[in-house]
Every structure is written in structure tokens, then in C-alpha cells.
């Protein structure tokens, strides 16, 4: 506790506060631009921090991380384009709000639940990290496969109206994730000899193509009117009624996000989808998900910000990064001559607690800036469509190019835009492709690694308690609704 107070006292220093603020503001801008992700923002700013002392450098990166994970939701809600993969699950309900002219309300909900999720994860980081840390080491190939397997059942809950269409789209996503070098043997699959396809299609150009481009093709083909949905912003903070709906979901999802964040190899995108799925599963009115309800925004947003603190748990306690951003943060610490892990706690306990306090403060700033920004953000959709659409298009091109500095990715984005356009025409949801592309490689690689380790015996998935849990949960998710339906039918007879 003393250490925490020292940490908090350290952070109450104008320089640190300003750095965190700048980081959060920069992070929100990066996150809200499609194509620029939290990972990229932190990676690009890393060299700038070399010249700073360790605490300053690390705090500004934390600010960017927290801001960017939140910022993705703004674009997801207002222009139906997730700013980062972590916000892909926010599109379902968030954009429905905007369609009703309640974009401001949705951003209020997303800001508040992001802050709740972030603060929960910061508190978990401070108080229980040593216990959660060792849990992270229990995950190996079998457990990761089971987690991905369970994750894929989420397709059922994000399939919108038709389960068959959702499954079909999900399968296509899995097939797409097979493109590239075989993870075990290095054999090139479906690359047609093109070196650009060696690492498969990058997720971000595909995601931007599927979500943003259909709107643009639509406006090219059908013309744009000056018509736009007026966004009414009467208040920026969620109402009492909204808070009541939101709190239980946000708190649950915040814990879930922290937990998923603490597992190395599972990040904010997986956490957001899982939280959405769980919120729907435990809801009294699951059929309303996807129509623009409070819980549908609160769950993914609380979870993805929950990951921020969660990912730092194994990073700081074990020196093992909890997700892609944390891997860069690991680099940031080692470059300062600091070794994350038990040694950091022994020799630099003050720095550790200053970082803890920094995560807390960054979430508070994110909340303040998000709430203050609502009126500004919502104005983006008040811009006439003949300005807005070309701007979105340019941002999509720049964002796709920026991932690998490759024009190939721009073509991928445009190509998937055409696919997305036709999918929209036949009422197919694009999200299962994104989910399958996130989980497909994880499932494949870990399935095969686990089988190599067990010498081909599938029992490895059932003898590990964690793996067994996820497999049972996955089977239950699929079988339980069917059984329930059958029981109801029997009752009626």
C-alpha cells in the first residue's frame, strides 16, 4: 500500500500528467483512424522515448495504448468502421445508435464502460497481479487451441439474422486464414507464387475493406444525397437508466478483459468479441443484441480496455508480454536498461508502482477526454456525405498502406471492399470473417503444435483442465440452445 501511495505521489507531477495526457490524446486520434492501431502507435513512438528517462517514456506509451484501444470505438460507432480490430465488436450495436441519431449516447456509453474496464484492470494489476501472472504460464498449445475453438463459437452470436450465413462467412474467414506459409512446415499455401501472400492477407486491410468500403461503393453506385442522420447530443454523460443497464455488463466485461489480456497471445480483439458473446449469453433479452442496445456497446468496450492493464500483468511480473502492444512495451523497458520480471519488482519497485498509478491516471484522462470530445466527434457525421465519403476513402487507403508500406494491401482493401459490398447486398455480416481471421491462425498453429507435443494423441485437449473447460464451454454453447429449444417443444406438446 505504501508503494502505491508513493507511486501516486510520483505521478502527481505536472510533467508526468502532461505526458500521459498527450499520450492519451494521441492514442485516441490514432485509434479512431482506421488502419492505425494501438500496436502501431506505440511502435512508432518508441524511438522518441529513447531519449527520455524510463518513467516518462513508459508513461507516454501507456497513455497511447489506453487511448488507442478506446479510440477505435469512435469510428466504429459513427462511421461503421472499426478504428482498430479491438473495436470490431463495437460496430454491431454502436453503429445502430448512430443510425438512430444517438451516436453521442453510444460514445458516452463506450467512454464510460472503457473507463470502467480500464480502471478494473488497473486495480487488478495493482492488487492481484502476482496471482494472475502464474496463471498465464499454464497456457500452452492445447489451452490456446481450446480457447480459439471456444472463440469460434462466438460466430453463432454475431451472425445477425441468419446462422447459416454467419457460419458460411466464418468458414470463408478460416479458409482465408490458411493463405500464406504453413506455420509448421513453411510450405507456401494458396500464394500463387506471390511473395506478398507469404504472410497471408493482413487483417487490417481486410477489415477496413469489409466494413468501410461497402459504404463508399454504395455512395458511388447510388449517389450521395445531402441527407445525413442528425446526431442529437443533449447530454454527454450516460443517463441514470443507461448507467444501470451498463454497470453490471461493464464490470463483468472489465474482469473478463483483464483475464484475457493477462494470457499471452490473446489480445483486445479476442476479449471484445468474447465479452460481447458473454453479455448476450447471460442477457435476459439476447435477441435485442445487434439492434443498438446499451449492453452491446458496454461489453466489448469495457473488455478491450480491460486488456490494457491485463496485458501488463505478465509483462511486469514475469517479463512476458500479454499482447502485441505489451511486447513493444517490453522493448521500451529493456532499452532503458530495465528487466521486467521479479528483478524489476526487487530493484525498481517505485517505478513499478508509478506505472501502476499511470495506468489508473491514463484511464481517468481517457474518460475525461472522451466525454468532452463527444460533441466534437459526433460532428464528423454531420459533414455532408459528399465530403465525408471521399475523406473516409482516403483514410482507408492511407491506413491500409501504412500497415506494411505496401500498395498490395491497398488492393487487398479494395478487393475485400467489393466482397463486402455484395455481402451487404445479400445481408451477410462481415464480422465472422474478421473473427475467423483472428482465431484461425491461433487455432491451427496450436492444434498442430499440441498434437506434435502429444505425439498425435488428441487426449491432450481433455487432460489439461483449462483446455477441457474451454472445450466443454464451446460444445455447451452450441448444444445448449438446441436442447433448450427441444425441451420447450416437448413442454408445448
Amino acid at each position, binding site marked *: 500500500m505504501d508503494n502505491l501511495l508513493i507511486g501516486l505521489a510520483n505521478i502527481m507531477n505536472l510533467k508526468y500528467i502532461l505526458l500521459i495526457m498527450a499520450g492519451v490524446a494521441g492514442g485516441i486520434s490514432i485509434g479512431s483512424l482506421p488502419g492505425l492501431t494501438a500496436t*502501431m502507435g506505440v511502435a512508432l513512438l518508441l524511438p522518441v522515448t529513447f531519449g527520455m528517462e524510463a518513467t516518462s517514456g513508459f508513461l507516454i506509451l501507456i497513455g497511447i495504448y489506453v487511448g488507442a484501444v478506446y479510440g477505435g470505438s469512435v469510428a466504429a460507432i459513427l462511421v461503421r468502421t472499426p478504428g482498430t480490430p479491438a473495436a470490431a465488436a463495437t460496430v454491431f450495436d454502436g453503429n445502430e445508435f448512430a443510425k438512430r441519431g444517438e451516436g453521442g449516447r453510444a460514445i458516452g456509453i463506450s467512454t464510460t464502460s472503457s473507463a470502467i474496464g480500464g480502471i478494473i484492470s488497473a486495480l487488478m494489476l495493482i492488487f492481484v497481479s502476482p496471482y494472475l501472472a502464474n496463471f498465464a*504460464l499454464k497456457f500452452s*498449445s492445447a489451452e490456446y487451441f481450446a480457447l480459439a475453438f471456444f472463440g469460434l463459437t462466438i460466430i453463432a452470436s454475431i451472425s445477425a439474422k441468419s446462422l447459416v450465413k454467419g457460419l458460411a462467412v466464418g468458414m470463408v474467414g478460416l479458409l482465408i486464414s490458411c493463405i500464406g506459409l504453413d506455420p509448421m512446415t513453411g510450405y507456401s499455401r494458396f500464394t500463387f507464387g506471390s511473395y*506478398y501472400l507469404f504472410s497471408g492477407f493482413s487483417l487490417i486491410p481486410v477489415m477496413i475493406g469489409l466494413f468501410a468500403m461497402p459504404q463508399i461503393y454504395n455512395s458511388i453506385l447510388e449517389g450521395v444525397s445531402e441527407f445525413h442522420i442528425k446526431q442529437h447530443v443533449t447530454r454527454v454523460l450516460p443517463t441514470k437508466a443507461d448507467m444501470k443497464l451498463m454497470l453490471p455488463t461493464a464490470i463483468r466485461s472489465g474482469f473478463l478483459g483483464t483475464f484475457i489480456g493477462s494470457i499471452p497471445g490473446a489480445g483486445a480483439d479476442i476479449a471484445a468479441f468474447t465479452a460481447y458473446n458473454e453479455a448476450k449469453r447471460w442477457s435476459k433479452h439476447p435477441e435485442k443484441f445487434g439492434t443498438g442496445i446499451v449492453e452491446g456497446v458496454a461489453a466489448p468496450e469495457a473488455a478491450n480496455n480491460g486488456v490494457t492493464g491485463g496485458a501488463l500483468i505478465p509483462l511486469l511480473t514475469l517479463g512476458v*508480454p500479454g499482447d502485441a502492444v505489451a511486447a*513493444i512495451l517490453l522493448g521500451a523497458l529493456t532499452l532503458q536498461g530495465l*528487466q521486467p520480471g521479479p*528483478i524489476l519488482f526487487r530493484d525498481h519497485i517505485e517505478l513499478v508502482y508509478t506505472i501502476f498509478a499511470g495506468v489508473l491516471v491514463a484511464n481517468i484522462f481517457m474518460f475525461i477526454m472522451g466525454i468532452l470530445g463527444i460533441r466534437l466527434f459526433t460532428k464528423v457525421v454531420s459533414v455532408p456525405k459528399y465530403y465525408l465519403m471521399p475523406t473516409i476513402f482516403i483514410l482507408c487507403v492511407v491506413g491500409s498502406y501504412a500497415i506494411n508500406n505496401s500498395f498490395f494491401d491497398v488492393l487487398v482493401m479494395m478487393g475485400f471492399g467489393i466482397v463486402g459490398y455484395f455481402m451487404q447486398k445479400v445481408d451477410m455480416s462481415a464480422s465472422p470473417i474478421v473473427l475467423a481471421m483472428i482465431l484461425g491462425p491461433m487455432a491451427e498453429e496450436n492444434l498442430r503444435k499440441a498434437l*506434435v507435443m502429444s505425439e498425435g494423441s488428441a487426449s491432450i485437449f481433455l487432460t489439461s483442465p483449462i483446455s477441457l473447460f474451454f472445450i466443454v464451454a464451446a460444445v455447451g454453447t452450441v448444444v445448449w440452445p438446441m436442447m433448450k429449444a427441444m425441451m420447450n417443444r416437448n413442454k408445448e406438446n
Partner: protein
Amino acid sequence: MKVRIKVIALLLCIMLTGVCFIGCSPTGSTEVASQFPEKPITIICPYGAGGGTDAVGRAVADVAKDIFGQPVVVENKTGGVGVVGMTASMNAKPDGYTVGMVAVELVSLPKMGLAPDTFTYENYKPIALLNADPCAITVGIDAPWNTLQEFLEYAKEHPGKVTVGNAGSGSIWHLGAIGLEEAAGVEFKHIPYSGGANPVVVDLLGGHIDAVAVSPAEVGSHVEAGKLKILGIAAEERSEKFSDVPTYKEQGIDLVLGTWRGLAVPKDTPDEIVSILEEKFMEAANDPKFVEFLENAGLGHEVLNSEEFVAKMQKEDKLLDAICEKYLETTE
């Protein structure tokens, strides 16, 4: 929001202007070597921001900009496990203004059928080697083996049972483990982990595999924390940081292999320009600021000039022939 759009528009304008400048390379090649460089130098990094190759490139660029008196910009051109970026720098205009970061994959990828025949180190004129990190075998602190010999003896008695993780199928660490197998006449069970060295080290920490075949730097913090131990390092000499760990050679295994990163320009670049680049980048590579950066990042500082660098690549070209052949056999 209008303000934001204005800012975005402004940024776009700046970017587009920048693109125009890239297009406007000087007509006619009347540059005199003595004036080189007259404009910014671009280093093409074939791997993404945040990785080891990128870190080395950015660090050397930072030091070199003062030495050249011109900006030195790092551009990440990723894809094709490095083929895309290296092909771009190999085929760049041979005027010395585009320099490629090259890595050991330049030699290994074509041997595994993952790059076209035209993808060869012979299409480059090397400038300087900046960094090298050897392969090593690391095990959990509670593992029953304390030397490489004990480990290999156990592997010999249990062929195909010892699980050795590496950082990706066909990666240099995978090839390093295969090289060790060949040199010692044993057979491991290789487990490739994609996504760099972190995931495989985590699995070793969790006790899910027996050993990892990555560099000492990538396990360094866990070794210092007393959770892992390094059994041997595939370098010519012992490392400064882990001076109590013997090399493979000291333990009777004749294998020196590892990753390395350096700079090179297209082979048609005029010799005068190559020698200017070599001189200035060598100066940057030996700059205390660069050395300190590598040390903090846990990267090995090994500098070779153009000539020595060519010799190194020729030597590795031969060494990797046999190892890559074995790799192709085992993965088929």
C-alpha cells in the same frame, strides 16, 4: 471536427508532397561522389516496426544522420518473411540513396524455396555488418542437464523425444537447432512458434517444452531472474554478458550460427559511393551511442566492413546449404 478534418487534410497534403519528392529523383547521373550525399538517405527495413531488425536500423540511422549531415530515414517494407523488403532494396536505383537492411534470411530463404532465384546476396554490395546474435540452447532452471553434452546425451538416448522450441518454421533459430542435431548426431522434436521469440520462451517458462533454440539475449532477463539456464552458445567466443556459459565449440560441437543484420546497396552502385557509405556507416556502427543502444536492447554488437561481411555471407551460404536441405527433408 472541422478542425480535425483540416488537420487531416493538411497531413495528407504533406504526405502527398513527400511522395512527389520521392518521384523526383535527379535526372541524369551526374552526381559526383565527393558531394555524396546531397539528399536524405533511406534505409529499407524488411521487417516491421518494433522488431529487432527495425531497432538496429533505427538506431544506426539516428547516429548516421549526424555523420552524413543529411537525414537518414527508415522505411519498413514488410511481407514475404523479408523477401518483399529485401527485393525492393536489391532492385532500388543504385545511387546509394536507398540502402537495404539485410539479415540472415537473405541467405537462408532461397535455400528453402521461399524466395526467387534472383534473391541472392550476390545482388548486393555489402556496406557493413551491424549486429549478430548466436543461437543457444536454453532450458528450465530445474532441468536435469547442466551442460550441452548432458543435454545431447539425453537426446541421443531418447531420439525424437526432446522438444525444442524455435521462433518460427524455417527461422534461423529453427535452422540452428537442426544444425545442432546434425553436428551432434541426435534427433529433436522441433516445435515452431510463430510471432517472434516471446511465445516460445513463455512456453519454456511454463514447462511445456524441454528447451528453446533462440539467442541468449531473448532469454537473458529470465536467466538473470534465475528461471532459465543457457547450456551453450553457438558463437566463436563466449559472450561478455554470459561469460560463464561455454560455447558449442568448447563443448565439442563445431557449429557457429546465428542471426545477423547489416546494410547493403544494389550491386551496380558505383564503388566510390559504396566506400563513402562504408566509411560513414562503419563510423556510426562504432559510435558509443549505437553500442550502448545495442547493449541495452540485448542485441549483440558485431561490426564487419564490406569485405569481411561478404566473406561471412559466403561462409554461411555453404553452411546453410546442408542445414536447409535437412530442414526441407524434415518438413516434407
